């Protein structure tokens, strides 16, 4: 058997535009490093299997209305959440986190997505207005192989989790339109959390594409529960391969699997949310 039929570095050189299915190619890889594979013939020395990567984007409203208790609760629950997502990422997917905050201005917590093992939550502060449209535009610009989604190997579609407590103060539709033309967004898992009375679930559903993946938190304890439900569920579904749609009784086609994960996310979020006990439902004699 010939050992010479090894493909030379070709990650992106000969890719035709349509083969990318709408995803732009990454920057040219470092060919010098790629060809320097020295033949080490030790059968026991191996590098880790190439893992698929998943970036979880958190879009967090840090406008003035979030100030005080809400922001404090959000910071605390996010700190607690990171180790929980870490457990999800322990398997065969490399999970990274990127946090985009939007108020009067749009800012990334860190300038690049950080591996979940190394991620540390930097506490956020709230002030200003709700520039959601600008956040959508910024996200769209970064969700590119030349920017935040530059893993050389395969990626799962990203998870995008939007949290807001108010109505956008800018033209969110224009930003959303731009985002919707981004393939990563199209195939991504989208979920949103409305916080308090002011948040508009219809706007959030426009962002996620369906009402199933929008939930609402009215109280502090709900906020913590909902953030965890959405983040953990979407990280779980996002970091795994599609699960078989069993017993279709016929050969599965592309239409059967299209956005299967997004649908599953909607189902699971709804199921988990409905299982949560409302504060008011708790009888006086329990919970002690």
């Amino acid at each position, binding site marked *: 058997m010939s050992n010479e039929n090894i493909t030379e570095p070709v990650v992106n050189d000969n890719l035709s535009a349509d083969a*990318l299915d709408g995803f732009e190619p990454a920057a040219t890889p470092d060919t010098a490093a790629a060809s320097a594979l020295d033949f080490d013939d030790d059968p026991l020395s191996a590098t880790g*299997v190439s893992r698929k990567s998943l970036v979880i984007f958190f879009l967090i409203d840090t406008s003035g209305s979030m100030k005080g208790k809400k922001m404090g609760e959000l910071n605390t629950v996010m700190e607690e959440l990171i180790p929980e997502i*870490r457990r999800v990422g322990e398997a065969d997917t490399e999970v990274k986190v990127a946090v985009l905050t939007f108020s009067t201005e749009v800012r990334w917590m860190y300038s690049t997505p950080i591996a979940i093992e190394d991620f540390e939550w930097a506490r956020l502060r709230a002030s200003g207005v709700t520039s959601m449209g600008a956040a959508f535009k910024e996200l769209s610009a970064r969700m590119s192989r030349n920017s935040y989604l530059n893993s050389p190997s395969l990626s799962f579609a990203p998870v995008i989790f939007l949290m807001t407590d108010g109505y956008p103060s800018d033209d969110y539709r224009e930003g959303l339109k731009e985002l919707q033309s981004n393939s990563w967004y199209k195939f991504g898992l989208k979920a949103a959390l409305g916080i308090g009375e002011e948040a508009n679930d219809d706007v959030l559903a426009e962002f996620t594409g369906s009402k199933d993946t929008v939930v609402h938190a009215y109280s502090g304890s709900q906020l913590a529960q909902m953030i965890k439900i959405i983040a953990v569920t979407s990280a779980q579904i996002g970091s795994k391969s599609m699960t078989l749609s069993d017993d279709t009784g016929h050969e599965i086609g592309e239409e059967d699997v299209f956005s299967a994960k997004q649908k599953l996310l909607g189902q699971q979020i709804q199921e988990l949310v409905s299982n949560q006990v409302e504060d008011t439902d708790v009888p006086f004699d329990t919970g002690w």
Partner: protein
Amino acid sequence: MVELEIGQEVEMEYGGSAKVLSVIGSGGQGTVYLVRFNGMKWALKWYDIDKMKKPKVFRKNLQTNINDGPPSNKFLWPKYLTKETADGTFGYIMDLKPDGFDSFVDILNTYKLEIDPLTGHAVKRPVKFASLNAMVTAVINIVNAFRQLHRSGKSYQDLNDGGFFINVNTGAVLVCDCDNIAPDGSNFGIGGKPGYMAPEVVRGVAQPNVQTDKYSLAVVLFKLLFRGDPMEGEKVVRDVCLTESSELKHYGQNAVFVYDPNDASNRPVRGIHDNVIKFWRIYPDYIKEAFIRSFTTGISEPTKRIIENEWQKLFIRLRSEIIMCGCGRTNFSSMFVQPNEKTFKCPKCGMEFASLGFSDRKYRMPLYLGCRFYECEISPDSDDFTKIAGELVENKLKPGMLGIKNCSERNWKAKMPDGAFYDIAPGKGFPIWQGLEIDFGEIKAQI
């Protein structure tokens, strides 16, 4: 779903109750808890029956499996069922994973994450086979476990990287997640994990069975030896984003093996699949050919897939072809120079190794200090690949003199330089020399 609380007592089917101590982990079908039952610690798997299609049938199958018992001690088998709760929720308890075993996922990642309980920071600890012998032994053990399972008329159904624990020092294997095991031909709703599922299951045209297990087994073996995905090459990487439809395409409708000799469209890509490229140069042809068959004709013709017994023979051969050279280089004999048919030479230090030819096979076993052969290699009726039959050792009283020690329980005959055959009793040995012949009974060997 009914989650259990720490401290809660779960009633067992045949009396007594298990007390929930902590959460071990959760998976697609439910959550696993650490429990105390009858004064001992166990793992309790508690199902989310809302996610099950037929919980009653599933429970009945589990009961049957418990009654049948495990096919061998390589399985972390369900032990006792819990009583069904009012809404039909149930679980089962099983032994805890013993210490010293690492998950297959950690082996593939080459490290495991340990969370520092104080800071919550994750620390990476390397996970690697201690020796080539341990690795090939692990492979033989995996194959053998599935051979035992299939011989008992059952199929595993969702074979994937989460289903095994391996002792990287000895090659011992534990098959866990045994709750979906079902008689061949039945399926209780589990599909499997893409990448491990047979293409016909991914496409939705077949349900998991013994034939699809064979495909998944080949994937597991490939991943363990070649440290990469057999179907992930240039064609797949080009998609950049692994959407549901690209998974359906690359693992179902149009799965192409990375080293398909007749289709070069999906070759491994340097910089991403370096492991596969490297190991494809290391493993001998008979191993590579078995994978080529599994992932080319085996894709469309399930009956042509390699059966466990065949894999077992191939890997027993592979183990016997390991050479541990004095210079520290350990590799398969195919990676050594062969100055003549019977000699292997280390390309690094030049040391030469004689070899032993057996009467029932064409390939030769290289001889080096510490090399062993096993019961199944000297007796045609034996399937025992763990019991050492003979070992090349240095004579304790005559330093520098190498010989073979009879570690078996039977008498052998060995030819000495005077031309006569002498009886070699168990525990005894004889020196190796150019004209050595050994008579094991039905099988004979000579240098």
